């Protein structure tokens, strides 16, 4: 499995509205792929299709080595997903949350103790393991959500705006953790609003009105759009790209 995601002509229509309009995407193994764009650009719809939640209206492709159309259910076993709100049970403890997801991901019970230990150690949850989630700071909740999403050892992780509502320090720790994962060959598909985070990605794609406007390593994108301004950032480049589309 050299490519974690490889789709062509992926599209989704809701009635007469086209949310995603025939996009091509590839994500390499061990790559952090940034998925950027304004609200309503079609990012979430795309992620939902790639996760097998939403059936695409057209296109073809493979996710985690499985066909997007025929094997949507099996894809779910190979991917991890972290939603924006870190959707965990906040009236349970981290331990109880972990245990539930071990069951849901059909991990053999003989491995449970080991997996929980591993998860706790990797995200640093030990002191909070038996405290009710509701009382934990957002950073700790986010780490728990990550731990839950990794319990079944997915090769591909989808992160939908994972850093919203988290303080800068926790955000930094989060990205370092993701970096560590990719060094183990795990791919991360991250949608984000924070453009400064895009610099941590190997490649980024900018989505606008259902289409991918630009795709490539962040530095190169900037250099292509604004060759005369070496000091310019991704933000400047995107502003020009989006304005160009609007005109």
């Amino acid at each position: 499995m050299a490519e974690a995601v490889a789709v062509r002509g992926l599209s989704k229509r809701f009635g007469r509205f086209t949310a995603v309009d025939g996009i091509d995407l590839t994500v390499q193994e061990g790559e952090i792929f940034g998925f950027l764009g304004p609200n309503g650009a079609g990012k979430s719809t795309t992620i939902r299709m790639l996760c097998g939640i939403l059936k695409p209206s057209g296109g073809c492709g493979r996710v985690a080595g499985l066909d997007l159309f025929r094997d949507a259910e099996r894809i779910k076993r190979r991917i991890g997903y972290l939603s924006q709100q870190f959707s965990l049970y906040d009236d349970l403890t981290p331990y109880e949350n972990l245990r539930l997801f071990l069951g849901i991901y059909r991990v053999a019970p003989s491995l449970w103790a080991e997996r929980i230990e591993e998860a706790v150690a990797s995200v640093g949850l030990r002191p909070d393991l038996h405290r009710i989630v509701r009382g934990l700071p957002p950073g700790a909740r986010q780490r728990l959500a990550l731990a839950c999403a990794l319990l079944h050892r997915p090769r591909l992780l989808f992160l939908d705006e994972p850093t919203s509502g988290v303080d800068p320090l926790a955000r930094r720790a989060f990205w370092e953790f993701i970096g560590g994962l990719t060094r183990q060959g795990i791919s991360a598909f991250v949608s984000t609003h924070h453009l400064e985070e895009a610099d941590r990605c190997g490649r980024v794609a900018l989505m606008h009105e259902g289409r991918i406007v630009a795709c490539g390593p962040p530095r190169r994108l900037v250099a292509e759009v604004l060759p005369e301004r070496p000091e310019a950032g991704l933000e400047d480049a995107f502003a020009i790209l989006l304005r160009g589309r609007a005109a």
Partner: protein
Amino acid sequence: MNGRCVRELVRKEFLQLFRDRRNRPLLIVAPLLQLILFGYVVTTDVRETRLAVVDESRTPLSRSLIEAFAASPAFRLQASAADARSLEEDLLQRRVDLGIHIASDFAVRLTARRPAEVQLLFDGSLSHLTSQRAAAAQAVIEDWNRRLLSLGSEPRSPAGGGIEGRIRTWYNPNLESRPYFVPGIVAFLVMLLSLLFTSLAIVREKEAGTMEQLIVTPLRPVEFLLGKTIPFFLVAQGQMVLVIGFARAWFEVPLAGSAVFLFAASGLFLVCTLGVGLWISTVSRTQQQAVLTTFLFLVPFFLLSGFVFPIERMPLLVRAAARLNPLAHFLVIVRGVFLKGVGPTVLWPSCLALAGIGAIVFGAALLKFRKRPG
């Protein structure tokens, strides 16, 4: 389907249910409180009908009739009114519920072997109560008549050899309303709680966003639904035990039949109510909507169940609708087991109906859920 996965979901649901402190009184205290409240409120027994008498006869015979009324638990002698006019005033002011007017020729006619008349005045503005009070008064008079005839010294009935119906009421000999209503309350309470808890538990996941997380996992809809319904099935059965035990201990309602059969039947009933609860959860986005929708279902379920208003007296179309009501079938079973002590040999049609309704409702909810969980 994966058993371990379902087990972990059930475990999680129980943890959430009992961890929330607000749930604990709801689970135990609420059903008992409602049982007590219903048990005392829902009663159609005629008790303590306030009685005023105008006795113009003033004879031992007329006094013995008045004493017969006074001796009945259904009546309480309030006062002797001076005349017919003040009797009417008493009724109008609702100081009494029944006025008895014994004419001056009462004893004279009786001893002359002629029929004597006693006027009974009821307040017809309370029609349902009055018909029962009238029946109770009629019973007192008939009883008094019979004693009068059997005394021997008195004249025999003019229609000497007529038919006298000897009425025996079986299963609830005194026709008390409590043994009739309390089993129904048990059924109604279990339905209310199972409907509410199931629909709320699923809608809460939608509100919290945890549903979205679950959809991205390999969790199958049927596993999720089992994980959601098994806990409430068990809780509802537990409440059955609690409420039935309490009904026996507090209201002294006898359980004539098999408790095991009753629980088996309530299992079928719960499949229906949990199915409806699931369906409600698929059409509700918020917990508030779920609660309101639940009550939308509860009212027709209640009215068309025969819990208070007999289905036999309803129009044909309404009777047909009542056949689709799981509560109606379960009430037949509950009353049969409680009062008559009958089992599956008699009650199998109701069990079959419950099983059929349950399969359809639960199946439909499952299909609807599969198509659009959110």
